[in-house]
């Protein structure tokens, strides 16, 4: 365990070495914030309420969407580049779990994002957009739980795509498509309640909504009581399925590498 904490620490510090990348990332997040809010304000026009969702609520949704996306920005090419450079051999030669290392890198990046990008953008949002706060501490806590589960759903989903590099060698195109799909149907930009009913029904059966939409709906109090528990259980279920698949894929990848030599 100590080893993985040491990984996280180093990844955090490595991020700090790239100042230009940091400032462009921060600028990007701020830009996303203002654009997201502007679009929804324009969409609402003169009306204060659409489909039972208030304008201020929707602004809060957009702001939180940007914050979550900033937080959950992951290094998509970690495994891809290790395979292509052959560096994966060096990792396999070390007595640690490679996937534990990958998770440590992602968490290290996330902690860096949290302190240096999410916090400043959050402060700007509160000052400029008067963010709606959660109704009570319980709601805030449930949101945080759902947020962590949402991260794990996204991470499991991503891991499956990242590990595909063992077979495809080039993952840029499929990762780009994957990210576009997530952006559209996970609730990261458009809440599911504004989707056509038929599409919303399909999306309800898929794991995408469990990344962004579920935590955000809980924050805004759109889910209540038993429904919250149900939503959390669904998230947990997808985590088990996606991570199980990823583990299966990793075993296949390892034996492919060891028997076939990449």
């Amino acid at each position, binding site marked *: 365990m*100590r*080893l993985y904490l*040491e*990984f996280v620490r*180093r990844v955090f*510090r*490595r991020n700090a*070495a*790239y100042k230009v990348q940091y400032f462009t990332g921060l600028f990007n997040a701020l830009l996303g914030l203002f654009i997201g809010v502007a679009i929804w304000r324009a969409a609402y026009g003169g009306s204060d309420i659409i489909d039972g969702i208030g304008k201020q609520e929707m602004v809060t949704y957009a702001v939180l969407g940007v914050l979550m996306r900033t937080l959950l920005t992951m290094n998509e090419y970690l495994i891809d580049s290790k395979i292509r*450079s*052959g*560096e994966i*051999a*060096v990792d*396999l*030669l*070390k*007595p*640690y779990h490679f996937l534990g290392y990958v998770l440590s890198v992602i968490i290290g990046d996330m902690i860096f994002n949290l302190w240096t990008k999410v916090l400043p953008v959050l402060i700007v949002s509160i000052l400029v957009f008067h963010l709606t706060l959660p109704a009570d501490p319980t709601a805030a806590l449930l949101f945080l739980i759902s947020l962590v589960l949402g991260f794990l759903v996204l991470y499991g989903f991503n891991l499956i795509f990242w590990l595909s590099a063992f077979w495809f060698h080039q993952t840029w195109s499929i990762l780009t498509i994957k990210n576009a799909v997530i952006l559209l149907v996970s609730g990261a930009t458009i809440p599911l309640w504004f989707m056509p009913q038929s599409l919303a029904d399909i999306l309800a059966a898929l794991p995408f909504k469990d990344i962004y939409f579920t935590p955000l709906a809980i924050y805004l109090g759109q889910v209540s009581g038993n429904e919250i528990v149900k939503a959390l259980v669904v998230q947990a279920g997808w985590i088990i399925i996606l991570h199980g698949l990823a583990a299966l894929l990793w075993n296949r990848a390892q034996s492919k*590498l*060891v*028997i*076939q*030599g990449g």
Partner: protein
Amino acid sequence: MSLIQVRDVRKEFQIARKREGFWGSVKGLFSHHYDTKIAVDGITFDIQSGEMIGFIGPNGAGKSTTIKMLTGILVPTSGEVTVLGRTPHKNREMNAANLGVVFGQRTQLWWDLPLIESIELLKYVYRIPENQFRRTLGMLSDLLEVNAFMNTPVRQLSLGQRMRGDLLAALIHEPPILFLDEPTIGLDIIAKERIRDLLVTINRERGVTVLLTTHDMADIEKTCDRMIIIDQGSLIYDGKLAALRAQYGKIRRLRVDFRNEPRSLQLDGAVLVNQEGLRCWFDFDKDDITASQLIARISEQEEIVDLTIEEPEIESIIKEIYEASSDAARQAKGEQEEQVLQLI
């Protein structure tokens, strides 16, 4: 028992066959045709504790495949590999604790962080007790002279410094075996010398068994007693460097500067290979004629102003061996094809 045993090891790869043209590539996505490529074709050798061995061969000869089987990253198709009495791929993590590995073209150091950060991380990776870690670190950093740049980010180090940092990282858990894959690649002549001296010290004073692959024959000459040469997956030489020289390097080249334009020289046992004005080059076999005999014969006929005798570089000996082995392989292949034709 030997530290490392390799017994009749074979490694085949299945390589997906590439098809021609657009439709070929589309078909390739759905159905697979594999070609079998033999990377290592039944090699056997033993390495004793404390040896320092040069492991050489042309590109694609099967060197890194062999090294990867020794580390346990690859499983042999057949045959047996044993390192410290264990099968590497069945005990990869345990085997890893006994190995230090340096790939000259890569680094295991964290690029953006000070060198010490990568080294301290290895303390946790190998679970090295704190006082043992401090002791080893102290000894190794004095030996490798890395103290001056211990707190410099790795990306700011020169290639020679980085290589010393990589050696430190490979040795910090005090492995009895060190694998080096082209450790001097890209280094300037002084940095090369320094790495070679360090490798010799690590081998002699710390008793680490070293297996070194390289394309720079000077690396081998200056560090290794024993040399293993493989080509096209087969072992073609395993023995002392000196014996190799004696076996292959019998031809000497004599360069002579004459006072006057030489007339046709009558020389038994030597061949005129080149002439530029008053300067001539002769090749001779030192078993047929001694240098002094040859010089005596020449000076009987012409007046010599200056001369030198060149011993063949180890490189040209190796080149001769590679060429002989690929000729043999080509011949074997030709015969096979002939047989096939006869069958038709």
